[in-house]
């Protein structure tokens, strides 16, 4: 795979992949290293990191182990990021593909709906959804997916608009191929690379959105998410800053990893944008 080789030549992308693997490893080892409930009492509250070898990252204001919460929080954050991204990308592709392929009235209606979503700040919309439907972890994840689909929809639509009039699509119609098959089997694979790249942005934003909700005490308080931990540290931010800073670093590393991987994928899948310009040897009859 040429794309894979191009990816491997990009040091920033490799760093991103390494960080992402690290976060995944943290998530996978959490139940092995911290088999007890991460939200259970672990010791005296507000112990500084590295002061007590039993709770090596210290404890929060309620006396819960910060290290255990960070490790288990990786599972929650990655899961929310992944599921919300899948929801957002699926809706986005479906809306964008139909709008871009059919155009006309269908496109007008779908795009006006998309714009209605886009004009609302998505965090406000998320707050409304959580306020109405409650804040258990499933609802929060679905809600994040529901507020994140407009951008992938627009991207997919733009790709479909340029691809639908290509001669290879016309050739399929001349062969007698139906619309659904043309959309799913002929156009979509060609439209996918930029959408996949954009999925990394959606995932990073989804993780941040959940943290922001948790910071406002609006996420599910019964799971150990990084946002909940930051929210818990809010009250002691000036004296015991590490309670918020440690999960903050975890979020930073994860979002950075996802962004670097996305950027690396972008460069690997769209090689023309990088490196020396393609050489136009001659125009001649090819024009």
């Amino acid at each position, binding site marked *: 795979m040429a794309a894979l080789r191009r990816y491997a030549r990009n040091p920033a992308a490799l760093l991103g992949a390494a960080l992402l693997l690290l976060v995944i490893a943290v998530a996978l080892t959490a139940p092995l290293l911290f088999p007890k409930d991460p939200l259970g009492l672990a010791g005296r509250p507000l112990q500084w990191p590295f002061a007590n070898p039993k709770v090596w990252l210290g404890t929060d204001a309620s006396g819960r182990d910060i290290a255990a919460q960070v490790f288990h929080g990786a599972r929650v954050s990655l899961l929310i990021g992944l599921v919300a991204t899948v929801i957002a990308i699926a809706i986005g592709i479906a809306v964008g593909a139909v709008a871009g392929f059919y155009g006309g*009235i269908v496109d*007008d209606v779908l795009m*006006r709906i998309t714009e209605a979503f886009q004009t609302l700040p998505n965090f406000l919309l998320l707050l409304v959804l959580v306020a109405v439907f409650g804040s258990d972890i499933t609802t929060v994840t679905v809600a994040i997916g529901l507020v994140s689909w407009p951008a992938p929809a627009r991207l997919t639509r733009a790709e479909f608009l340029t691809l639908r009039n*290509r*001669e*290879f699509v*016309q*050739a*399929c*119609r*001349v*062969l*007698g*191929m*139906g619309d659904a098959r043309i959309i799913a089997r*002929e156009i979509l*694979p*060609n439209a996918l690379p930029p959408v996949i790249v954009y999925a990394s942005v959606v995932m990073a934003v989804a993780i941040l959105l959940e943290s922001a909700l948790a910071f406002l005490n609006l996420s599910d308080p019964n799971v150990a998410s990084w946002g909940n931990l930051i929210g818990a540290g809010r009250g002691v931010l000036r004296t015991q800053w590490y309670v918020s800073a440690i999960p903050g670093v975890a979020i930073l590393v994860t979002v950075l990893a996802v962004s670097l991987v996305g950027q690396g994928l972008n460069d690997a899948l769209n090689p023309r944008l990088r490196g*020396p*310009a393609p*050489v*136009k*040897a*001659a*125009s*001649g*009859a*090819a*024009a």
Partner: protein
Amino acid sequence: MSDLLAIEHLSVRLPPGADRSHALSDVSLTLAANEILCVVGESGSGKSVLANTVMRLLPPGVRPDGGAVLFRGRDLVGASEAEMRRLRGAKIGMIFQEPMTALNPLRRAGDQIAETFRIHTKLGARAIRDKTLALLDEVRMPDPAAALRAYPHELSGGQRQRVMIAMALALEPALLIADEPTTALDVTTQGRILALIREIQARRGMGVLFITHDFGVVAEIADRVAVMQAGRLVEEGPAEAVLDRPQAPYTRALIGAVPPLLPRAPRPGTEAAPILTVAGVSKTYRKGGGLLAGLLPGRARVTHAVRDVSLSLPRGTTLGIVGESGSGKSTLARCIVRLLDPETGTIRLGDTDLASLSRRAMRAEARRVQMVFQDPFASLNPRRRAGELVAQGPMLHGVSRADAMAKARELFGLVGLDPAAMDRLPHEFSGGQRQRIGLARALALEPELLVADEPVSALDVSVQAQVLALLDRLRDRLGLSMLFITHDLRVAGQICDRIAVMKDGQVVEAGPTAEVFSAPQAAYTRALLDAVPGRAWIPGRPEMPVV
């Protein structure tokens, strides 16, 4: 007479990973003042790199690594960037292929011409305006005062190219470089622009370096000709000598592949009963409006792409539809295969009226009429393997995968491709080979009628000859009837039994090719025939390339 431009042993290196190490290898050419030197070659021959090397407009990573480009004795390869800026525009003018992209769409035409004066002279605004007007007049712009204020999109392709020429000529350069200046233009416009370049060149005594792939254009305009192949100069000499007595085998093969502007010999059986009868077909395009278009009638712009066209195609023959861009020929072709829905009229294929079928019913009839597309790069899905592309059609119509692949294998042999290449992706094939894949895909459904929309216009001339011969052979062998859309009368004469000439959506003349060529009835047909570049030159045919 001393040389205006002398290119001595010039080599230009390509970055690593390109398909060859040098774009140009050891090219030596001279151009005297007051002559037109045509550099001619197929795509990839390095002719555009040659023009860009003289102008020092090479892309990053591509640079000369030997030889010299002497302009009035001064070596441009080693000249400083500041010196090149003083030369470009002032002493050396350049015209590009695509007049739309070479002009800034946000600035008025007059303003863009005036820019040259503002950069290189100290003239006042009034003097610049007068000079710009005079230039537009010199390039025979209809209504120069209006053109001064026009934006590029308000001008036609030919008018835009006139603006480009006016810009290039503004400071009376001694050398004009023209890189395929008429390739993007219609044939009648091309004829006028060629005449204009010739006229201004003679009046000003300029040297012109003219890059082209078209031997017709060469015959029309060249004093001397240089033929290039894969970065090397293969032959150089006076125009008549190269065109009529080519020495190098490559030049002979190239010229042999240029179709002469002559009708093909009439074939027997061209008066058979019609397989396709088109009657009263019209198609209009509506533009603008959007969601409110239905509520505000009369707002949308309406274009009559095809107006009341009637045609018939006798079984087993080829009907050519010839016209310039915007004549509606491609729209008509797309109506016949029902990529577009005609508003009125009937399209009878045998007993079936294709125009009245529902989309679902048309899908079932799809196997009876198939299409070959213009662009060999865009017409194949880049993510499907060649064999699969060909087998796709039969599989859609219920043939099992194994049978369809076997059929694809057979078709690969029929169109002259190696069946072993069925597992490759489209980008691993050349343009001519891709066009053969497109042809195999169309033939896989065993259609009665093949609609070919400019199937050879994107191909180099030698490949074009092979594909035309293949189409001709397959029509006879498979008993096909063919509708052949083209803008090129030379190609039409080569392959069509009958020709219909279209202009502004209407058929202005139709008849057997020989009659249309020898005794055109419509004034427009005569204008088209007169505008074919190099029409007086009948290329000698030493031997046809073996197909």
